């Protein structure tokens, strides 16, 4: 009733002050909320991450324990991540996840802050993935490996001859024509093509590229598709393809319960080892909080959650994470086989900028064939 009355009064213009008063009261209330908000707000941390860090089961325990809100921005590819930082104000970002082989590239840009050695569980990290040469410079640590896995062969064991999967060259055979997906990332795939040719990833040069390109083109002609993570996973899960070259536990692990026939192996020629590192941005205004976040991520609990993140699974770098994983999770990650896998793998190629450009050109030409 009173609303109608006020409405009528306003319509007739009898009480214009009432309208203004209500507006001012509302505006004051809103302003009070707006100005009060910062004092009530939690501290915030801005992290540039890969999609596996966006799983709430990983982030929420840290947020609750520290009464902090972690703002996550996920990106794909170091170039995209570095572009985001270049286009941001110093201090916008506190933490960054980066491909292990690209830490030195970020250090060339003076992006990362030093991490105190005593703040990190270095002794617990699998020695093969500590990667001091990547994560440190001049004896100082700037990043820490948080997760690793393999770019190798993932397959549906109900549809392929498992013995064939022990030999990279079998993927070029007529037997598997049209049954293969190739993971769409040129660095590991160029590395794998190099392995098939008997070349070590660390020793690849311009001179190797023509032979690698020929092998990649032949592989493309034998394959069904070249696809990103989701499309590759979909293709393997739906039976569109039987093999994913470049895949590994990070493709099959998350599907292990629903698709037990999906498996992966490292062939005799070897596979590629990928690692991801985490670092604190030098320009962060919250160095201590950012360091705390890094410590949480590399702690056994954080590592177990990161390893089984909903986006993709992969081995945690911290060997103590095993205490927080179930037997089924460890089986999917091949926890007990790591000792035999690691010696058979090589790190991604780390090309110079010029060689990187040529590798990308080879990849583009292969895709356009």
């Amino acid at each position, binding site marked *: 009733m009173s609303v109608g009355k006020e409405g009528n009064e306003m319509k007739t213009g009898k009480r214009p002050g009432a309208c203004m008063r209500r507006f001012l009261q509302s505006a004051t209330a809103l302003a009070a909320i707006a100005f009060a908000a910062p004092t009530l707000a939690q501290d915030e941390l801005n992290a540039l991450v890969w999609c596996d860090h966006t799983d709430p089961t990983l982030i929420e325990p840290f947020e609750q324990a520290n009464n902090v809100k972690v703002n996550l921005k996920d990106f*794909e*590819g*170091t*170039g*995209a991540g*570095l*572009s985001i930082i*270049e286009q941001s104000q110093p201090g916008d970002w506190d933490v960054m996840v980066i491909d292990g082989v690209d830490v030195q*590239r970020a250090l*060339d*840009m003076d992006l990362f802050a030093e991490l105190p050695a005593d703040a990190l569980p270095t002794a617990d990290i699998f020695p093969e993935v500590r990667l001091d040469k990547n994560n440190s410079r001049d004896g100082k640590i700037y990043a820490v490996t948080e997760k690793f896995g393999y770019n190798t062969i993932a397959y549906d064991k109900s549809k392929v001859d498992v013995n064939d999967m022990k030999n990279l060259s079998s993927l070029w055979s007529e037997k598997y024509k*049209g049954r293969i997906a190739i993971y*769409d990332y*040129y*660095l590991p795939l160029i590395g794998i093509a190099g392995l098939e040719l008997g070349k070590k990833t660390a020793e690849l040069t311009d001179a190797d590229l023509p032979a690698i390109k020929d092998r990649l083109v032949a592989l493309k002609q034998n394959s*069904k*598709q*070249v*696809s*990103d993570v*989701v*499309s590759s996973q*979909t*293709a393997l899960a*739906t*039976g*569109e393809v039987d093999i994913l070259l470049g895949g590994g536990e990070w493709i099959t692990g998350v599907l292990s319960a629903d698709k037990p026939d999906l498996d992966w192996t490292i062939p005799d020629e070897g596979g590629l080892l990928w690692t991801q590192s985490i670092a604190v941005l030098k320009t962060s205004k919250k160095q201590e909080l950012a360091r705390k976040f890094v410590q949480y991520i590399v702690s056994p609990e954080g590592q177990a959650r990161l390893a089984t993140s909903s986006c993709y699974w992969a081995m945690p770098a911290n060997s103590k994470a095993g205490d927080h994983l179930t037997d089924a999770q460890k089986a999917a990650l091949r926890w007990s086989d790591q000792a035999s896998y690691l010696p058979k793998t090589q790190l991604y190629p780390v090309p*110079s*900028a*010029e060689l*990187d*450009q040529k590798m*990308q*050109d080879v*990849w*583009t*030409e292969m*895709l*356009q064939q």
Partner: protein
Amino acid sequence: MTTLSLENADRRKAWGFVAPALVWTVAFFVVPFLFMAAMSLWSRQGREIVRAWNLDNYLRFFGENALLKGLSNSLEITLTVTVLSVLLAYPLAWIIAERVPKRFQRTALILAILPFWTSYVVRSYSWLLVLTKNGVINQALLGIGIISEPLEIASTRTATVIGFVHFFVMLLTLTIYANLVQLSPNYRRAAADLGANGLQTFWHVILPLTLPGIMTGAFLTFVLCIGDYITPQILGGNNELVLPQIIMLQIGRRADLPMASALSIVLMLAVTLAYALCARWLKIDRV
């Protein structure tokens, strides 16, 4: 004097109305575009972006077959999609405007554009599941015995075109329908009076009058299709690259923003050319 000051007041008011849109366009289109055009003349050398103006990126584009093929793939797919979408959307719009009773037209239109309500990415992945070897189409065709082996549709250009056409038929149906319902029935009566049969009426009267709707929809289809990255990426299986995919390749790892900018300018030139070709029919106010 009074008339003049009134005109000035009207003009000021008009500028007042236009100003927000103008500021928006300048801030979020003109300035970024100029920045992108300038950046396309820089170059990535090693890990550094060199801010010396040159045409290296454009020379590289016209000198490398793989990059040029990206443009030709984009144009071929876009033209195919545009033509197919028009051919499918026109009869649909016609049926809704002319054959469906007035009271059901709104429902019919809503049904026609219903797929718009789902996420573009989800729709593309849904199509992927439909088109795979074990998808609905292959299983149905195998089930009724029309084929003995699954058709290879997913991860091909055909899949990309299907995904695009499904999306753009909805868009074109709207623009053509809007044009059709505006046509006065007197045009048809006059044509019939002059002895034209149904086909002649359509060909000589209705079709020319609905060209603005067709061309507006076709131009929008062209613009959206040639710049799309998601559908070819999900449905095409990377078995051929279109220009937006090549642009993404430049950014993904290497952060070669100058080359990506140059390729984006090439893409914009293609759109500008398309606009110039259909500008004479683009009468959006009539749609």
